[in-house]
């Protein structure tokens, strides 16, 4: 029984934990289908008996109008009523209407009731479908929907087959009116199933509201302005018009052949039975595989492809004057088109709601099914009237129009697919903050800027000034002068720095005034320096006055000003003072010298820093690092890298190296390749390369991608990912090769995990392998991000690492939609929440694994240097702990491993195994 159940679940790709929800939905779908079948049969029979087909076009138009009215009502309530209450309300409303029709028909034979019944038929269908699929949307996430919505729909089809075949007998027993009672009972069961669903799965509805961003509800107009939704609505409209055009052509043909009621009824009986069977096969077996393999676009164009091929063939036969062929090809086309529409296209449409916010999901569904589709039905009716009454088209002529509509539908399907991916990515990254440059062209940007510049917060004012400078705005000079009046000294210093950098001569008078009156000595010192830069001719006289000032900032400003702009006299005078400071025995003086060299900022002044970087005093070394960063002379790189080993100076050294930019790369490469460099140091160097932007650093990072050390490799991937690297040229081959190797490695890890996860005593190793597998998946996703839209894949990576199944499903859906078919087949099973044996089975064609025995696997885990040392150490530890002598030689072979962890664990295990061997001998 268990095997049978497992086989069933495997065939239909039902995974652990999904069985109960699937059963609930399947049963509900069964009753929903029964309700629709019996209601529609009763409506059709009563209407045709009382009115014939003459009023049918009017019924369609009335149905469309009432559907729109009811649809607006639904949308209104959907805004305010919680989802479960709304769904219960819809079912209760349908039951009441059904009961009303039933009892009125029992009481009176009035013909208007048959007309009402026929009009209500379409509304009934729309509302019950909305209710059912809205529930399904809450119970399954996007990935589950792709796999299981088709199977869920088979409940509906099953009740149609059973009810359809049993209909003649039922009608003979009860009469037509009592079919309404059966339909009402079906609705009642749907209501009961909804209550059961609420009781057992109520948390899923709450989760849907809380875990995702709900946001404000958008108006109908705003909804239609959303590009994704507008394409989606256009697709729905075109698809629906195509459906009714084909429908009309089909009935027209059938009517021309089957003239009496008996043959017509026989034909429809067989037709609907076969249709239901085709739907059953399509829903249960084909849909999930089609969507999983080719994505949503296949689901959207399947029905159109059937219509196009069928009608095109039929037109070919008509051109050859094969009238019989035309008829039967059209009947076949209608059969498969209707099956594809309800079994493939409808579930795909429901998947398309998934990227929407919960607040928009129900609303968009209601708009489509209550407004767009009825409008399409009315449009199709009007178009048919136009073609038959005005243009006098026959079926052949209408077929050409149909082909045109099918073409438009296919185009809109591809547009929807493109926007679907964008919408999914947007849904995932919705919480991401983003910033943009202010243009200052619009009033709101200018207002923000004014407020920023008036702020008491120095950082805000400086940011405002930076933005103005970056935008090269003409008001910069005026704003900087105004900033010299700012109460905060930090802002005044920043303004002076920018005045100097922009050589703003107009500020000279104000700078002179600061030199004389400014109370803050730091600002005064800066003013001296800036004055030297602005008025080089007067620099010596003005600055030399401050060379012996008791205030350090003034001395500093004077020395820097003179060395930069003081002419020969100034350089000689200030140079001798700087030399004195460099040779001072006082660390504070040497630190001051380093600061001055940094302020001067001339790369040729680097030599004194070589000494200061190795000064005995830490503060001097730190100041020298800062200065070295400002000079950015490549000859300083090696000395700065040395300082990385000092934890207290590491950050300063990193900052200094980053400011060198790409000039630091050769030095970093030398440091990386040093034999004595530890893993930690190499990771640090890689992180540093990552902080240095530019193509050369990207190339350097790519060079280190092939290193075998996992920690270093991860840092390289992380840094490349951080800069949204996209491979081109030769790099594509490198990344693809890495990807292939990673996938192979990941499959091997899974095979090992499968072997060890069942043994309790091997828990330690199984956990290490799980962690190794997770890391491997992350590396694969990084590599994928280098080949496909990087930010989207990296966002998906974050989701796939989440603890929440829904988030992982969203991440998987993004990957599914972005990567190519061949890569998808090799990677998706690795990211799917399926048991390891299933993952391996799906990957066997892409990364075949030789059968392993546990002993051989453990040996490989011990010796495989590609794995993390932690995993290898766990394998060694277990060998020692279990006193398993079979591993003695293997463990001995890694006692000189480069990894200290592996070496230490191996030494311990050898000792443990030796003592066990000794005890055995004794």
């Amino acid at each position, binding site marked *: 029984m268990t095997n049978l159940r497992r086989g069933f679940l495997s065939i239909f790709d039902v995974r652990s934990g999904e069985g109960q929800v699937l059963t609930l939905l399947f049963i509900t779908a069964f009753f929903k289908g029964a309700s629709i079948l019996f209601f529609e049969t009763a409506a059709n029979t009563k209407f045709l008996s009382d009115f014939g087909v003459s009023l049918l076009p009017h019924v369609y138009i009335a149905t469309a109008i009432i559907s729109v009215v009811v649809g607006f009502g639904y949308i209104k309530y959907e805004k305010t009523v919680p989802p479960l209450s709304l769904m219960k309300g819809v079912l209760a409303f349908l039951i009441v209407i059904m009961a009303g029709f039933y009892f009125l028909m029992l009481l009176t034979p009035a013909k208007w009731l048959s007309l009402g019944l026929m009009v209500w038929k379409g509304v009934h269908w729309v509302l019950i479908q909305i209710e059912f699929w809205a529930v399904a949307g809450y119970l399954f996430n996007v990935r589950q929907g792709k796999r299981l919505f088709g199977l869920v729909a088979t409940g509906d089809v099953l009740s149609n087959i059973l009810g359809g075949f049993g209909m003649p007998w039922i009608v003979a027993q009860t009469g037509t009116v009592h079919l309404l009672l059966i339909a009402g009972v079906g609705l009642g069961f749907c209501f009961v199933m909804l209550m059961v669903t609420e009781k057992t799965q109520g948390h899923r509805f709450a989760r849907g509201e809380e875990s995702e961003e709900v946001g404000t509800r958008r108006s109908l107009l705003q909804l239609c302005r959303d590009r994704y939704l507008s394409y989606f609505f256009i697709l729905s409209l075109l698809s629906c018009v195509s459906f009714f055009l084909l429908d009309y052509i089909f009935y027209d043909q059938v009517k021309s052949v089957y003239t009496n009621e008996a043959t017509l009824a026989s034909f429809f009986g067989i037709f609907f039975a076969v249709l239901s069977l085709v739907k059953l096969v399509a829903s249960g077996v084909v849909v999930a595989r089609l969507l999983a393999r080719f994505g949503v676009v296949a689901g959207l164009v399947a029905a159109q492809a059937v219509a196009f091929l069928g009608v095109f063939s039929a037109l070919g036969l008509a051109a050859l004057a094969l009238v019989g062929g035309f008829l039967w090809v059209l009947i076949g086309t209608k059969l498969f088109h209707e099956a594809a529409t309800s079994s493939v296209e409808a579930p795909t449409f429901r998947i398309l709601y998934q990227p929407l916010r919960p607040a928009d999901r129900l609303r968009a569904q209601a708009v489509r099914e209550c407004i767009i589709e009825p409008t399409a039905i009315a449009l199709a009716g009007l178009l048919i009237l136009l073609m038959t009454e005005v243009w006098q088209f026959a079926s052949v002529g209408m077929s050409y129009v149909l082909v045109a509509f099918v073409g438009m539908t296919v185009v809109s399907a591809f547009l929807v697919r493109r926007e679907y991916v964008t919408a999914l990515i947007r849904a995932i990254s919705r919480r991401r903050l983003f910033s943009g440059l202010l243009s200052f062209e619009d009033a709101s940007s200018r207002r923000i800027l004014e407020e920023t510049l008036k702020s008491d917060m120095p950082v805000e004012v400086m940011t405002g000034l930076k933005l103005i400078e970056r935008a090269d705005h003409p008001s910069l000079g005026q704003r900087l002068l105004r900033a010299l009046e700012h109460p905060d000294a930090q802002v005044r210093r920043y303004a002076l720095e920018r005045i100097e950098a922009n050589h703003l001569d107009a500020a000279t008078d104000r700078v002179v005034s600061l030199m004389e009156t400014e109370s803050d000595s730091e600002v005064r010192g800066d003013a001296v320096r800036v004055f030297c830069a602005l008025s080089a001719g007067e620099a010596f006289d003005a600055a030399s006055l401050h060379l012996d000032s008791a205030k350090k900032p003034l001395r500093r400003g004077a020395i820097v000003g003179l060395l930069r702009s003081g002419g020969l006299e100034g350089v000689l005078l200030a140079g001798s003072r700087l030399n004195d400071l460099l040779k001072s025995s006082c660390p504070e003086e040497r630190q001051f010298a380093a600061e001055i060299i940094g302020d001067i900022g001339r790369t040729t002044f680097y030599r004194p820093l070589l000494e200061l970087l190795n000064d005995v005093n830490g503060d001097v070394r730190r100041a020298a690092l800062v200065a070295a960063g400002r000079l950015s002379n490549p000859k300083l790189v090696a000395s700065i890298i040395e300082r990385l080993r000092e934890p207290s100076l590491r950050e300063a050294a990193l900052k200094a190296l980053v400011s060198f930019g790409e000039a630091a790369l050769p030095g970093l490469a030398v440091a990386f390749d040093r034999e004595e460099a530890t893993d930690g140091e190499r990771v640090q160097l890689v992180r540093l390369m990552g902080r240095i932007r530019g193509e050369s650093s990207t190339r350097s990072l790519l060079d280190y991608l092939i290193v075998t050390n996992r920690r270093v490799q991860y840092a390289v991937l992380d840094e490349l990912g951080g800069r949204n690297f996209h491979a081109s040229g030769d790099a594509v081959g490198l990344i693809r090769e890495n990807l292939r190797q990673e996938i192979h490695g990941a499959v091997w890890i899974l095979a090992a995990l499968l072997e060890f996860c069942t043994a309790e005593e091997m828990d330690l190793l199984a956990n290490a392998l799980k962690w190794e597998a997770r890391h491997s998946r992350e590396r694969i996703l990084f590599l994928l991000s280098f080949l496909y839209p990087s930010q989207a894949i990296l966002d998906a990576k974050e989701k796939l690492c989440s603890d929440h199944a829904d988030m992982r499903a969203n991440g998987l859906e993004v990957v599914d939609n972005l990567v190519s078919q061949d890569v998808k087949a090799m990677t998706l099973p690795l990211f799917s929440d399926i048991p390891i044996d299933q993952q391996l089975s799906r990957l066997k064609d892409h990364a075949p694994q030789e059968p392993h025995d546990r002993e051989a696997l453990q040996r490989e885990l011990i010796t495989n240097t590609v794995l993390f040392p932690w995993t290898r150490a766990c394998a060694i530890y277990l060998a020692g702990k279990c006193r398993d002598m079979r591993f003695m030689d293997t463990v001995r072979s890694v006692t000189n491993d480069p990894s200290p*962890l592996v070496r230490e664990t191996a030494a311990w295990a050898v000792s443990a195994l030796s003592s066990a061997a000794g005890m055995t001998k004794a």
Partner: protein
Amino acid sequence: MRITLERVLILKSIDLFSAVPPDALVEVASILEEIEVEAGEEILHEGDMGTAMYIIVDGRVRVHAKGRDIAELGPSEVFGELAALDPEPRSASVTALEPTQLFKLSSAPLFELMASYMEVTRGILRVLCRRMRAGL
């Protein structure tokens, strides 16, 4: 003396390090100080500035303040946990009830490690965020 792997396993069982990946815990294990105290020996004194956390490897300790017993802790339990991240005066004294083996993790080397190993920082932050959310 425990090997690094065994130290990592002990660290892994502590909530603060539960989200730190094992390869990064190897680095944490390398800065652990292994200390042994006799029964009755005071390990921490109430009011002293705390800059380290302690993990009980073997033995039992008594946590007490102002002459009153607050708790008794045993193997794999931790005290002074947050002091390693945010030094503050000890709110209670801790005394060994029997010969006890401890791992001491001081804030200075831990901070250095956190500066070098982003994984350690991320793992600790994750646990602190989890605690904050649970407390909200």
